């Protein structure tokens, strides 16, 4: 079985990466004769790539394990199996690549393989469409990165990362590279307004692949950004941080707002990926800003926060996608309006999914909270920045961050409540049953990761120390030694957080309360029909639906964020037809950015097309005029 092999391999990758990360050894480099002839393919494993290698290996291992069980239900396995290992290999190679050519090669292999996986179910129209948009956008990002590397490598083509570093140390106007890298890596990671392909492509793929695309591939894009901006090009200018901050804040808010409006479970998850990418970029932008002014420790804090959030997100987003996949395969429905009450049918999945939801909503004591807490702490340091623009930008972005965190909580209340709670809305949801045990093991693995990263974050922060040191020249104070496993970003007098203690505290008091009540007060339970203020209705259609849940929020933000329009069609008294409300939403990025470009291309094509239908004489006159023009030019020139 292919997946088993992938599992074993990614396990090995994880071990290797961790050993490298913990035992902070010197970067290892291999040069193979493949690739560009006079350069060869460089493969390099330093702290940064080790961290991301661990990240990728973790989620790919989980996905493979999941697929061992889940893959049996694949209808056309021959369209998934060949590309899956290639996809994994591509991601790992991107992280390991040591020169521009190898990097872009593996980058594109990654994109292509995932695109093939997106189109695995090629008989549905929208999958093929998603694959197309995805392919074009992926090539766009690759070409943009190619330009960036072209600038960095120079005309003589010194593509190896070391020589690039040497060149860029003295180069000027490196801002170009930043912009290109932001566009290139950002469009792959799903940075607004280049995110449009993401919610199309990620849901279309088989679930374990969606998990990888959201959990790992977007992180590989983040890796590309970090590698280029922090490592390869020289010291940043102040406005770099500003751009990245703004982009991140916008992405986070837009992403989560769109996520709230979705009723397709996997698409909702995809949009929430966009949001988390935004959060990561906020942290990275802060790190850039701090670094531009030489505030080493602050930069280290921000960078660590960003990378930690990348790790956390890959953990819980993979978990959530796997859960969604389990739901999909057992009920055949991705649309939440056709689900409900699954907590009774698939309890383990429900529990694990709940852990994921809590983690992604940044609830203590899980891991999502830790990284967002660190990011907020980093924002709190921003008054040290001398630049006024950043001074004003940072708190605003902080507000956006808080806003999107709260919206994310609402979003996942909706996702979980509508999918797993309440009463089943269709027969399919009625008869669903628990998923296979491989999938359960895989998901519980990820859930455990979320939990551990939540209560002992100090381990992970210390593991990130060499990365921070190598990139911004400073690191956060060592955390692991502290009493009670507390984490202290700067100083205890400033702020500290202890996930483990909070968890123990809550658990203890909860259990205490429960036991006291059960001991001294009643513990009798009686089952009865739902009370519902006196007029319960047995029809599950009376439940709150996903659309109705998000309606208030749509009222609040919708009108200007996605030009939401509601049309209510209320039958007159005596009419028997049901009343219905229709909502139309727009993704402005699509309406204002993509559609015009597509129209322009079409228009130009139409405008040029008649050239196919000219007569020979007219073609001849083209030739003739070309000749005359050139000769005249020559006559004038010489």
């Amino acid at each position, binding site marked *: 079985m292919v997946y088993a092999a992938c599992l074993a391999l990614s396990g090995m990758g994880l071990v290797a990466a961790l050993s490298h990360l913990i035992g902070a050894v010197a970067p290892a480099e291999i040069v193979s004769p493949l690739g560009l002839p006079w350069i060869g393919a460089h493969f390099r494993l330093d702290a940064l790539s080790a961290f991301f290698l661990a990240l990728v290996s973790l989620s790919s291992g989980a996905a493979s394990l999941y697929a061992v069980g889940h893959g049996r239900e694949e209808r056309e396995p021959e369209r998934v199996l060949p590309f899956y290992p290639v996809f994994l290999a591509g991601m790992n190679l991107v992280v390991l690549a040591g020169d521009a050519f190898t990097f872009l090669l593996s980058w594109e292999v990654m994109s292509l393989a995932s695109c093939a996986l997106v189109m695995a179910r090629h008989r549905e129209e929208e999958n093929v469409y998603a694959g197309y948009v995805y392919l074009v956008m992926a090539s766009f990002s690759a070409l943009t990165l190619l330009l960036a590397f072209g600038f960095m490598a120079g005309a003589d083509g010194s593509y190896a990362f070391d020589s690039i570093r040497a060149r860029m140390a003295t180069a000027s106007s490196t801002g170009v590279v930043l912009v290109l890298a932001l566009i290139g890596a950002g469009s792959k990671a799903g940075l607004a307004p280049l995110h449009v392909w993401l919610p199309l492509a990620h849901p279309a793929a088989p679930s374990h692949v969606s998990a990888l695309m959201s959990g790992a591939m977007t992180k590989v894009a983040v890796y590309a950004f970090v590698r280029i901006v922090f490592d390869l090009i020289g010291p940043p200018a102040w406005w770099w941080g500003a751009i990245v901050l703004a982009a991140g804040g916008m992405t986070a808010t837009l992403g989560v707002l769109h996520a709230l409006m979705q009723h397709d479970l996997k698409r909702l998850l995809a949009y929430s990926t966009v949001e988390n990418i935004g959060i990561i970029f906020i942290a990275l932008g802060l790190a850039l800003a701090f670094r531009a002014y030489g505030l080493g420790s602050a930069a280290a804090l921000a960078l660590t926060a960003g990378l930690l959030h990348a790790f956390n997100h890959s953990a819980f987003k993979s978990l959530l996608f796997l859960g969604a996949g389990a739901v999909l395969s057992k009920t055949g429905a991705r649309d939440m309006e056709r689900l409900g009450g699954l907590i009774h049918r698939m309890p383990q999945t429900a529990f694990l999914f709940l852990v994921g939801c809590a983690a992604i909503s940044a609830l203590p004591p899980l891991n999502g909270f830790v990284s967002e807490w660190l990011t907020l702490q980093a924002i709190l340091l921003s008054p040290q920045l001398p630049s006024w623009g950043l001074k004003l930008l940072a708190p605003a972005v902080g507000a956006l961050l808080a806003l999107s965190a709260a919206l994310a909580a609402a979003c996942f209340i909706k996702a979980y409540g509508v999918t797993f709670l309440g009463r089943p809305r269709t027969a399919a949801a009625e008869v669903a049953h628990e998923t296979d045990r491989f999938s359960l093991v895989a998901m519980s693995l990820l859930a455990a990761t979320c939990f551990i990263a939540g209560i002992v974050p100090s381990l992970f922060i210390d593991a990130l120390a060499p990365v921070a040191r190598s990139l911004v020249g400073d690191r956060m104070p060592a955390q692991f030694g502290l009493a009670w496993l507390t984490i202290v970003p700067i100083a205890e007098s400033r702020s500290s957080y202890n996930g483990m203690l909070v968890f123990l505290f809550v658990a203890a008091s909860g259990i205490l309360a429960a036991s006291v009540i059960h001991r001294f007060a009643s513990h009798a339970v009686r089952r009865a029909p739902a009370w519902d203020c006196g007029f319960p209705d047995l029809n599950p259609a009376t439940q709150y639906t996903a659309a109705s849940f998000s309606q208030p929020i749509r009222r609040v933000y919708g009108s200007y964020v996605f030009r939401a329009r509601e049309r209510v069609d209320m039958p007159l008294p005596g009419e028997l037809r049901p009343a219905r409300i229709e909502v139309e939403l727009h993704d402005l990025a699509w309406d204002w950015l993509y559609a015009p470009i597509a129209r322009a291309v079409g228009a130009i094509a139409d405008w040029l097309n008649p050239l*196919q239908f000219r*007569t020979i004489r007219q073609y001849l006159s083209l030739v003739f005029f070309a*000749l005359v023009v050139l000769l005249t030019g020559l*006559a004038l020139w010489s």
Partner: protein
Amino acid sequence: MDGFTLDVAHLLAGGLVLTSFVMLYQDRLYALLNVFALQALVLSLSVAWQAWIQGAPHLFITAAIALIFKAFIIPVALHRIIANLGIHREVEAVTGLGPTMLFGIGLVALSMVVMLRVTAGDDPLAREDIAFALSVVLLGLLMMITRSNAVSQVVGFMSIENGLILAAAGAKGMPLVVEISVAFSVLVALIVIGVFLFRIRERFDTVDVGVFDRIQGERR
């Protein structure tokens, strides 16, 4: 070489350009063919003259080919085609004659400017020849694009070729001229045969968009 030979060469080359202009002016096919025959004659004369003054006997072959093939065979063949297709009453200039002539004069000026300037170091005879040759070529091309009639386009192409032969002959001691002229004659012959075989009615480009829709792949 003395002035006389130069003058003769000059006269003949200029004659070529002149005939090209006359062709450009003609609007009757038969007349056009006659003028073309005349041009071929002039060409062969000038090539022969070049052969004599350069003392290059192989050029005589080229002259002979030009004379026999272009001055007689081709025009006759074209006469028959025209007769077959019954298009001899054709008046078919796409653009008016006046603009065409003006443009032609402009072309000649252009070729003079280009050539006479660039070949500054060369001997005057070669300069004259190459400049006239270029203008003949350009005029022939102009003819091809201003006439919409197959036969006259063929004629235009052949006058382009005449210009080339002139240039080749004028380039002193240039090898392979014979081979080249032979190859070209084959080309021309094929064109004429094509016109004859495929019954290209009146013009190469009887194209309505419908035809191209078929070409676009709706065939079969």
